[in-house]
């Protein structure tokens, strides 16, 4: 079970509090987790990745085991603690104004 921590505004959007848990088959990659997340919550399509290009939106970052993986290949395996559910994948909104 993969654990995902989402920004507050996206939790509001999907009407969930706390972490999101997802079943993701091996290999557990960032792309696979985001695909599973969007299938469970279709309203998130376009909010984390662009609808068409599937590229990360500019003000969104990904962290795993305290490392910024925003610029890593999305098909790279996530760290074992994230893949095993020990550690969450963090989807973080940039701190920028507002």
């Amino acid at each position: 079970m993969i654990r995902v921590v989402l920004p507050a505004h996206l939790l509001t959007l999907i009407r969930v509090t706390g972490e999101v848990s997802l079943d993701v088959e091996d290999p557990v990659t960032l792309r696979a987790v985001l695909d599973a997340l969007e299938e469970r919550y279709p309203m998130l399509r376009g909010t984390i990745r662009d609808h068409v290009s599937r590229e990360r939106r500019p003000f969104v970052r990904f962290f795993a085991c305290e490392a910024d993986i925003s610029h890593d290949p999305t098909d790279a395996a996530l760290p074992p603690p994230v893949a095993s559910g020990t550690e969450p994948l963090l989807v973080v909104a940039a701190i920028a104004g507002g």
Partner: protein
Amino acid sequence: MSRVRVLVGTKKGAFILSSDGRRQKWEVSGPLFAGWEIYHVKGSPADPDRLYASQTSGWFGQIIQRSSNGGRTWEQPGTEPGEPTTTPDGMPKGESNKFVYDTSPGRGKPLTTHQWYDGTQHPWEFKRVWHLEPSFADRDTVYAGVEDAAIFRTTDGGKSWHELAGLRGHGSGPRWQPGAGGMGLHTILIDPKNAARMYVAISAAGAFRTDDAGRSWKPINRGLRSQYIPDPTAEIGHCVHRIAMHGKRPNVLFMQKHWDVMRSDDAGESWTEISGNLPTDFGFPIEVHAHEPDTVYVVPIKSDGEHYPPEGKLRVYRSRTGGGEWEALTKGLPQRDCYVNVLREAMAVDTLDECGVYFGTTGGQVYVSADAGDSFTAIVRDLPGVLSVEVQTLS
């Protein structure tokens, strides 16, 4: 007894203000979609309990919200949770938040670039929905004006959106340029007597009209004069801020331009200036009285560099002669030290016998006049900055 429902979009959520026809006591609900920018909320004329909202964020992009019970509950139209988000052949299914420009070669000349602030060409990039215009006849048909400028339509209640590519296919796109707020298509007017005729306005490209339900468009900017562009009378490039019409006389249009208040009596074929005795003819919103087609409202703003009322006095100006002669409406409005703005989408009128006039400010006030502008009172004073105001008259 009739009721009114005022739909307010702000920089940090939406609010619904409700009252009976006297418009003296108000209920305020919200914030809805707290923390998100709500560019526009509008109800369907075909089903007033069907509302659409444009929820947007610099972080997370565009969300379309829909209510079928007058705003008590909201949903995102589209794929239900747990359903596949792709078709059996792997293509993404239509999604309510998905606005993808039409690049098919068969639809006119789909454009890929427009003019950037520095005069260079820049790719078209979808940013947000500025305006939602539900159709008169069908609660599931809605037009959306977006940034970068284009018009989209849904016919399934917002589940999927498709561009009316003939507008960008007009061929003038490389001369369109963004205004200070971005290159938004912010005004959509549907002729209530002829649904095939629509008007749109774009900052800063100008006004366009279709007579074939959006397949083809023509610029309608003759008579506009804009000193801030290289050719002040060019066909394209004018920063139109807002257009308004009266439904019973749809060939007559009123325009608040970047500078100048204008009028057309021939469906936009030509325009004449009606700024008259206004203290300044810069401003954003313009509205027409619900029952008097020659009664027009504007809110003069000092200048393009100083977006606040002249002399610190918040004044609505009303013309009862279709422009040219204007009177200041000040009763109930601050007449000193007021430096708010009133944005283009933030003014509306109701259709009660005594026409109500509403507007919201960047300072978070929403004012109502229950006597056609003779006097105003604040419904609320401390909302986030108001981006849009619409009103529904309910029986």
